[in-house]
């Protein structure tokens, strides 16, 4: 009774503290810009950003940029999952495949996805495809490794128990391996989504003509600085929404997991 009330008040206390620090930072930022503090003098202030907001939001091109970025993200990400999850599972289950594919993957993986941009542009006929390819690469390695790790970490005893029931390999895969690996698959998706947005933004800045990354860069080049912040915030929100969608998916797919 008393303890329940205490618990509730402690979460509101945390929230209040959080609000205080965020607001405090915004105020500091505003003041810093006005008073020309060392690092903040050229950065547009929160009030300036808010002022430019309705012009941007009214412009349909801005929303087209949202759609462009999202469609690239979805294409590249989906492709990475469609190919990466099976590859990871196969490598977990077959020792031969694992030994065969792991070294080439380990060699290619440390190459940052963006380093592939020029090669991708040379190879693919359209800019769109080259951006999606780079996104795919970024998420692919993450997915494969996470799924591989998760599948290999399945408690051997669960598989033995299934075997002693007389399960066929097909059953073992669909009823044991896949559900047991699901948390790792979801984790791989979550991390992969983060990587995906990083790559999209950079790829659009380097080689794109549309999208939120391009919007942010173009705002800088065009001298419209408050728009930069709007662009950044948009990307952050977009990324957050995407991760949120994955987390929701994760809860549905793994109802037995305790909420972290």
């Amino acid at each position, binding site marked *: 009774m008393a303890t*329940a009330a205490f*618990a509730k008040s402690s979460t509101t206390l945390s929230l209040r503290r959080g609000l205080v620090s965020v607001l405090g930072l915004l105020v500091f930022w505003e003041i810093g810009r006005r008073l020309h503090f060392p690092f903040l003098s050229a950065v547009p202030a929160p009030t300036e950003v808010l002022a430019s907001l309705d012009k941007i939001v009214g412009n349909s091109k801005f929303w087209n940029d949202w759609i462009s970025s999202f469609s690239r993200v979805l294409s590249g990400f989906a492709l990475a999952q469609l190919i990466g999850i099976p590859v990871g599972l196969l490598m977990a289950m077959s020792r031969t495949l694992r030994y065969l594919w792991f070294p080439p993957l380990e060699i290619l993986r440390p190459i940052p996805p963006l380093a592939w941009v020029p090669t991708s542009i040379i190879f693919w006929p359209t800019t769109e495809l080259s951006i999606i390819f780079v996104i795919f690469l970024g998420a692919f390695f993450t997915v494969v490794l996470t799924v591989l790790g998760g599948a290999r970490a399945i408690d051997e005893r669960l598989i033995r128990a299934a075997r002693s029931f007389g399960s066929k390999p097909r059953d073992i895969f669909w009823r044991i391996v896949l559900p047991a690996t699901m948390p790792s698959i979801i984790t791989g998706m979550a991390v992969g989504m983060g990587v995906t947005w990083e790559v999209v933004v950079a790829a659009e800045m380097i080689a794109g003509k549309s999208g939120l990354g391009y919007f942010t860069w173009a705002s800088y080049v065009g001298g419209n600085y408050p728009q930069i912040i709007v662009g950044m915030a948009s990307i952050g929100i977009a990324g957050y929404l995407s991760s949120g969608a994955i987390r929701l998916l994760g809860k549905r797919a793994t109802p037995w997991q305790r909420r972290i």
Partner: protein
Amino acid sequence: MTPVAATGAINIRNVSKIYDPDGANVLAVDNCSVDIAPGEFCVIVGPSGCGKTTLLNAIAGFHDISSGEISLDGKPICTPGISAEPGADRMVVFQNGALFPWSTVLNNVAYGPVVQGAATSTDAKTKAQALLAELGLSGIGDRYPNELSSGMRRRVEIARALINDPKVLLLDEPFRAMDALTKGVAQEFLLQAYDRVRKTVFFITHDLEEAIFLGDRVLVMTTRPGRIKQTLHVDFGRPRNYKIRSSRQYLSLKSQIFEAVREEAVRAFEAGERELA
């Protein structure tokens, strides 16, 4: 000549504890009263989750109680809402062991004196070395806990507790995770250490045989909410020999409280409640 402790009397008076994990009010301990004399080896036996750990934690100072009072040598150390800070006067040996995995055995044992400022680092290490030798543990000072067997780890942890000269030693099912053979030997070790220092010991376990072998007094606790159901006085002299386990007196003592303990075990089993951490 075994010394008799002058301090370390614990008085538990009408102690109850309600707590609130995830919003469900749970009465963990219900109106318990126990008086423990200085130097007495007091054992509480009960099924898992019955509240015995809650009592121990209250004495140790890890949380408070909802009603009643606990005092040490006449001074209250736990009242509703206020509990004394955990300290070296009430040393705890934890269930799964709490030796710092990142420190060597020697540094673990020397930890108490060093952080209390009671001795310089070198003095503390010398003292630790000496104590380890007395307890038959010389030669492992430079090892890390994960290199030792569970039995040895538990012994080191007891040494770490004893070096601080506590008034009370609180042991929370310390031998629970051991196999029966190791457990028996570890119990003998504990008894030898106890005979040397004769501190007050508050020992909890679910193992009835362990309770009778070790204790001067055995208290049976009911399943949640925990109440003291029955008390048994164990009259074997000290030092005790492992052979008493097959004596007639031992079996008769055991049969006196076996029914009471079994009843609680059955009740806990049927209730099927998830044990609180």
